[in-house]
């Protein structure tokens, strides 16, 4: 098990997301550093996938830019290694299972450990298939971050009870992408999760404004923002890091307000 859970202790976490190698190696490294500088608690680095079934258009487009840059799984590791020279911010990978499977579960987890990557978010691996990788991940102290959705129903209990690191609470139905409305039973859902586990929760999928971030951070232990940041990268390209850092700071303070509101 990693030290991810500890981050949430008495602290509302902000977890931003970037796609590796979008639009290129150096910019991604700089973006990771900018996110850390801007106040991210955990940086989620997306490994591009040819067919990202859980992702909306913004992240699909980022994946395509990364493929144009020639991204390989190896490239992603090198980006993290390069970032590690400038920051020790906790990092998790968001990756579709096939990437990990093809690399080899053991080799992949070992690599994560070596790079100081604490966890994996695998959107196409439900509870039923977690045994494929969890024993291996455990061996290297890597958390497999489970997702819980508004539709999870009777499944919440077993998923929550088996969780480690943190729990990715899906804010709404469908796929990633900016949204203005969320599932209105999120508060109850988080409460139900809490009744089964102490593992912290972070809400993601569609959050994109400071106000939304604050709202979500009031409900859960943390908030994840993906498409909004990827969108900045799409707009600014190599000039993204500065804007990313500014945006991160604005979210950081919104999340901190939620923290204060609660305290």
């Amino acid at each position: 098990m990693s030290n991810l859970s500890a981050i949430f202790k008495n602290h509302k976490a902000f977890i931003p997301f970037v796609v590796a190698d979008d639009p290129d190696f150096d910019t991604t490294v700089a973006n990771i550093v900018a996110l850390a500088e801007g106040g991210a608690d955990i940086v989620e680095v997306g490994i591009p996938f040819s067919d990202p079934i859980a992702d909306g258009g913004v992240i699909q487009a980022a994946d395509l830019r990364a493929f144009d840059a020639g991204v390989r799984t190896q490239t992603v590791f090198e980006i993290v290694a390069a970032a590690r020279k400038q920051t020790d911010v906790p990092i998790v990978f968001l990756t579709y299972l096939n990437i990990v499977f093809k690399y080899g579960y053991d080799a992949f987890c070992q690599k994560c450990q070596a790079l100081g990557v604490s966890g994996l978010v695998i959107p196409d691996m439900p509870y039923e298939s977690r045994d494929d990788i969890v024993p291996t991940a455990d061996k290297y102290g890597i958390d497999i971050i489970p997702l819980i959705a508004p539709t999870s129903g009777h499944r919440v209990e077993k998923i929550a009870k088996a969780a480690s690191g943190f729990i990715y609470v899906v804010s709404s139905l469908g796929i990633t992408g900016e949204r203005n409305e969320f599932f209105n039973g999120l508060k109850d859902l988080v409460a139900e999760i809490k009744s089964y586990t102490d593992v912290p929760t972070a809400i993601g999928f569609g959050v994109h404004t400071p106000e939304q971030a604050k709202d979500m951070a009031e409900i859960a232990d943390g908030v994840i923002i993906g498409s909004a940041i990827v969108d900045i990268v799409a707009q600014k390209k190599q000039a993204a890091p500065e804007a990313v850092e500014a945006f991160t700071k604005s979210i950081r303070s919104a999340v901190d307000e939620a923290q204060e509101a609660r305290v």
Partner: protein
Amino acid sequence: MKNLTEAKTTKRLGIFANTYGGQYIPETLMTELEKVDHAFHTLKDDPDFQAELHDLLINYANRPSLLYYAKNMTEDLGGAKIYLKREDLNHTGAHKINNVIGQALLAKHLGKKRLIAKTGAGQHGVATATIAALFGMECEIFMGKEDTDRQKLNFYRMELLGAKVHPVTTGSMVLKDAINATLQEWASRSEGTFYVMGSAVGPYPFPEMVKYFQSVISKESKQQLKAKENTLPDMVVACVGGGSNAIGSFADYIDDQNVKLVGVEAAGKGVDSDQTAATIERGSVGIFHGMKSLFLQNEDGQINPVYSISAGLDYPGVGPEHATLAKEGRAQYVGITDDEAVQAFEYIAREEGIVAAIESCHAVAYVEKIAPTMSKDQIIVCTLSGRGDKDVASIAKYKGVDIDE
């Protein structure tokens, strides 16, 4: 009707030979998948459901489909006796209807009012729209914008049948993007909606369910051949895209070890070329579209573009049970190129007066190769999965004939 919508906890399901299959989809869809699983397993042995299904297969799909003795081909090839299982004679012209009838009936029993499906060239979309019309259900079909532009006729045909077709404009605007869009739609509105799977692929229970509904092919052919020849076939041949017609053609023979099972994949420009869809021969193990199976992918696990002249066979994966049958050596999988399939398209038209789907002609091409090597007292049953009217224009173009309808 029992209370079918209640989802219950499931254990690890749908794993073949400890390897292939399983469930690899977003959590958002898992509860719905459990409901489908539960309903399917509750209903499949329910006499009322069985009776309804049977009635639809007979009185709507036009089953049993003919087991046709291809005398001319048999004599011309000079080896094994060739029977063709004529799924092309089903209503709507392909085996697809068997499966959509089954799934739509399940949807009806689940109280669903809306069917959604993705489609590439449009075949599965048309079949789904057809059954939705019959059942008076809403129907929404997702199709890449590139494909709706290329296949305007099928687009219109689906709308004619009352379906709403959504041209998908994300990504490269082809099948994979349509799949994403359909999953998104399913994830965001699963209440009241049934996702109709087009082949024996995807997460459990879809491969099992599609196999179940397509097994009627081999159940019939076994009985029919028994009546005609009082024996089992020596070989069963069927083309493999996702694998639904092939698994349906094999199903009832899998335990008959003496019956050779051959799945024919689309080799495109050649099994060893980059333009191929020969998943089992060229692919490697991976996890994609909800299942662990064989996929055409690069060493990083990125899914490759696929190619075949046949829209129905150019899928980068294959159903998990085929991966299993291949691994266990129970079935053999071979590739047939575009050129060979087109030649077979012409061959069977000229020999038997049958314009068969270019997908099915991959199987026919293999029969042309293998039959002469077999003895005259051996029997091949080859499934003609569909009719070829849809292919006449494109084959003409392939042959350099100028067709502008």
